[in-house]
């Protein structure tokens, strides 16, 4: 019990409600500075932070990892740990100064009125108590609300956060509900005693796009209903554009820009903000762009930041190249003085000596390059004119499910399987990139494991250049192994921490004897250059590298055996936007220079669009839509693809789109729905006669459309197009190059 208490102590009881006076801001932060004590010195983590949160207002805080976003939240909550402390500035909560107030008193003030929602709902909820117990505890622990009354109130609150079947959910345990629902429970818990301030620290980062869209809608609704001040911390510009009223941009522990969301997105003044906005691949971008803007260098470590200069100066293009500046003398102070926040307009500030000067250049089209030739597809359904490199036919990959019952042990029960990949047929053409998209659990990673030989196929066939691949990797012929290599997702675990970079890239070269032994080092250095790293990285260890650099080494290692097919499993999803942009650019370059064929797995549709020639959309172990990029992104869509596309948050606060919220959860792959596997959640079923009865009964066949576009749906393609147009998603029609 006590374990669940400590995280909730914040949201306890209503016994001492603060006076709600509308003209006093909920939170006023001025010149906040926070430092951490380390073994060597006091390291400043955050400084120069100013912002105000009013009732019913959402203030977004964005920045890359390591920029001090969470530190601000912990500073407000006084959760800095034993080695962190506020070293300057003030935090005023409802007009009352918090810095310097004794801890016990602080806890009282904040505990009643500030709630926090964390990134991972699994860690915020206690797995050994029912959801009802955990929720009612918030109300009953410190007030005299009775058990029954509390129970009722909790159900009402769950209903307000749009929890389906709220009364029954109260009796369930945490593992029995899905991630999106867990996050709803956490939000409900945070709102139970009507806090004046709600701090949300990356509340949607761990969720799938469709779930994220639903949670963001919820946050938007709650703001109106509860009149709560919200601090919304995230790294995702699309998410912040959707929910925030004001935006604070953090860089290396400093607030570099602040303003109303529309102004900030329409005319960002600080070079860092501009860089960030340019880094993100967007659904609306012209397809012929294949260079994303990326910011040079990396965020400096807190210990080696120059406090007497502009913190962004080492990475700033305006200072280094000054390419858009008429008067170059403006950047003279950048490395010798620390800039203050300069007013851009009456409520928009930027921490840059250039001030309004940067606004003279439109930000959104600078530095994006042109894509060379996209693979041209002309009216040919089977692409028979092109070489097929990889041919997957009716691939099935089932995992036997552990059944602990006695019947199963005796072999009497029917064996059940988790059908991770069920009957997939795909072709990858030589020199093209196939993007595979889908939410978590759709089987995209399993598909790849089957191809690469980490899992044995249950049924079906995979052929690489006509050679059967149906053998586990360790039994395959070396010459076959070297043709298939992989880039992994997590930069922190993709490299072995015990060996130098050179040794790790060199290993496949030695193993596959790509070059003679004495030339291995030269070859490694060539590969390092190919991924834009200097030769001295040869002797470095992985822990001396940043996330983006590690990912580059991962790519170099995959390329070392000169494979004909490179499989990238979400290579950028764990990276910060500016770093991800550089890695994506690199992959595109490699594709062009070396003519490699790639399979690119991602959950982010805008990233897939940016890098792929063909896209396959997966749902529950099946491919529901397949086609060249130019055919996938404009209508007609498969209803699932449409929901996915509409949920992608767009970094543009003026684009108010209605995202399609999918009801229910992804069904378990053990017990797949009959007929069309998407029918349980399909929002478009009702257009079919008899409310889509056919979807339940009959498995749909692929509708073949021009350009090799295939949709697995009973609804005719023309109708699907019509529906998409009705929804008013015209943006997709534009700019598809």
């Amino acid at each position, binding site marked *: 019990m006590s374990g669940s208490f400590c995280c909730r102590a914040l949201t306890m009881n209503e016994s001492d409600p603060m006076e709600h006076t509308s003209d006093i801001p909920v939170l006023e932060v001025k010149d906040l500075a926070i430092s951490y004590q380390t073994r060597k010195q006091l390291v400043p983590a955050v400084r120069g932070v100013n912002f105000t949160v009013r009732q019913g207002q959402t203030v977004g805080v964005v920045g890359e990892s390591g920029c001090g976003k969470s530190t601000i939240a912990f500073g407000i909550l006084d959760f800095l740990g034993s080695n962190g402390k506020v070293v300057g500035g003030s935090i005023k909560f409802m007009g009352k100064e918090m810095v310097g107030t004794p801890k016990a008193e602080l806890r009282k003030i904040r505990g009643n009125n500030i709630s926090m929602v964390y990134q991972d709902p699994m860690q915020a909820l206690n797995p050994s108590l029912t959801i009802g117990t955990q929720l009612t505890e918030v109300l009953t622990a410190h007030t005299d609300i009775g058990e029954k009354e509390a129970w009722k109130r909790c159900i009402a609150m769950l209903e307000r956060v749009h929890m389906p079947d709220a009364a029954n959910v109260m009796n369930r345990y945490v593992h029995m509900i899905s991630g999106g629902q867990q996050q709803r429970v956490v939000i409900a818990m945070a709102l139970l005693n009507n806090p004046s301030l709600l701090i949300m620290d990356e509340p949607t980062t761990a969720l799938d796009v469709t779930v994220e869209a639903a949670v963001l809608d919820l946050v938007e609704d709650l703001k109106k209903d509860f009149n709560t001040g919200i601090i919304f911390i995230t790294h995702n510009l699309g998410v912040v554009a959707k929910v925030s009223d004001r935006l604070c941009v953090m860089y290396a522990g400093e607030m570099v820009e602040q303003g109303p969301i529309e102004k900030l997105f329409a005319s960002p003044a600080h070079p860092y903000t501009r860089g960030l906005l340019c880094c993100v691949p967007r659904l609306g971008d012209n397809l012929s762009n294949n260079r994303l803007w990326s910011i040079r260098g990396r965020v400096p470590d807190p210990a080696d930041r120059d406090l007497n200069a502009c913190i962004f100066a080492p990475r700033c293009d305006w200072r280094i190249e000054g390419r858009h500046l008429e008067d170059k003398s403006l950047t003279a102070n950048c490395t010798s003085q620390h800039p203050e926040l300069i007013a851009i307009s009456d409520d928009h500030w930027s921490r840059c000596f250039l001030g309004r000067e940067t606004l003279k250049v439109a930000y959104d089209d600078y530095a994006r390059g042109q894509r060379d030739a996209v693979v041209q597809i002309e009216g040919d359904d089977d692409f028979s004119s092109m070489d097929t490199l990889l041919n997957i036919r009716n691939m099935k990959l089932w995992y036997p499910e552990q059944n602990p019952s006695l019947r199963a042990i005796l072999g009497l029960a029917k064996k059940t399987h988790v059908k991770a990949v069920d009957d997939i047929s795909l072709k990858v053409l030589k020199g093209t990139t196939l993007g595979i998209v889908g939410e978590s659990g759709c089987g995209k990673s399993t598909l790849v494991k089957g191809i690469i030989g980490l899992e044995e196929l249950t049924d079906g066939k995979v052929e690489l250049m006509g050679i059967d691949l149906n053998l586990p990797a360790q039994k*395959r012929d070396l010459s076959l192994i070297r043709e298939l290599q992989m880039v992994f997702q997590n930069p922190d675990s993709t490299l072995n921490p015990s060996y130098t970079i050179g040794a790790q890239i060199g290993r496949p070269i030695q193993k596959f004897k790509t070059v003679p032994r004495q030339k291995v080092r030269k070859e490694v250095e060539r590969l390092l250059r190919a991924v834009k790293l200097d030769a001295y990285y040869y002797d470095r260890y992985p822990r001396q590298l940043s996330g983006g650099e590690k990912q580059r080494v*991962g790519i170099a290692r995959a390329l070392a055996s000169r494979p004909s097919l490179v499989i990238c499993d979400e290579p950028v999803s764990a990276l910060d936007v500016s770093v991800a942009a550089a890695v994506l650019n690199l992959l595109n370059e490699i594709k062009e220079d070396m003519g490699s064929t790639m399979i690119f797995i991602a959950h982010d549709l805008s990233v897939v669009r940016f890098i792929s020639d063909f896209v396959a959309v997966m749902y529950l172990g099946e491919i529901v839509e397949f086609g060249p990029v130019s055919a996938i992104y404009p209508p007609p869509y498969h209803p699932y693809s449409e929901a996915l596309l509409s949920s992608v948050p767009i970094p543009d606060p003026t684009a108010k789109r209605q995202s399609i919220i999918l009801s229910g959860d992804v069904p378990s792959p053990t017990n797949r729905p009959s007929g069309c596997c998407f029918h349980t959640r399909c929002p478009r079923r009702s257009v079919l006669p008899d409310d889509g009865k056919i979807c339940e009964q009959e498995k749909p066949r692929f509708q073949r459309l021009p350009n090799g576009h295939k949709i697995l749906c009973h609804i005719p393609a023309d109708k699907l197009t019509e529906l998409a147009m009705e929804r008013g998603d015209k943006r997709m029609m534009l700019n598809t190059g």
Partner: protein
Amino acid sequence: MPETVETKNIAKTKKAQLKDMFGILLSSKIAMVGLVIVLFWVFVALFAPLLTPYTPYEQDWKAPNQGPSAEHILGTDELGRDLWTRLIYGARVVLVVLPVSENISLPGGTAIWGVVVALIIGATLGLIGGYKGGWLDELVMRLLDAMMAIPVILLYLIIVVAIGASAVNVVIAISIVGVPGIARLVRSLTLDIKTREYIRAAETRGESAWFIMFVEILPNTRGPIIIDAMLRIGYAIFAMGTLGFLGLGMPPPSPDWGSMVAKGRAFILTGNPYAALWPSLAIASLVVGLNLLADGIREESMRYQ
């Protein structure tokens, strides 16, 4: 030009690495105390012949059972042998020299050899169990569990009685007793490490299981293993003391701390506790020193991560 920048960079990082490691030691007072105690014993054991005019077997019939004096700084035992000499020669057997037979002795003491052998066997079994999994894992782990079910002292007794008392046999006993613990530790580390993506990368490269276990996984377990090994050397010294005390350690007259305590025990009540006191203190201080060192390093390396 770029060459010099490059080498400079490397030199800098290597230096920084060493500095970091030393920094961990220096910043932990506990680890420093432990290190000083351990280094003291290693030093006296290494230079034992230079630190005393006697040999450990030299008997002085005129002065049995004496307290500390100018001639015998820690006193003498019942046969008039110098206790200081026996003590530091005893440390030699524990930490510096392993007498295999009368003419051959290996560098590295009995306790250290015991732990190293246990490490090699235990790590191999743990790696195989953890990485391969399945029935092989079940088999190995259940066998080791069975061994762990037997009380440690009893296990030592059984082994030494079965194979006889000698320095080499003590090493064998220490290693056999140490294997299950090390295997469990390495297995749990392996289970974690084998889920990392660099292992996936090695598998997709078609590396053999042995390569993955010993080249990819093993080096990454070294941190916890080093700390565990330090503690284990402490336990081994303790075990050697116990065996010696029970008369199952080094055969007499070799200077064995355990047997020194056993011999001296008889004279505690007759007014001469020194023969039992010094070796007891020696065992205690060395074990405590190793524990402090291991704890200090562990704590300090976990903080500020």
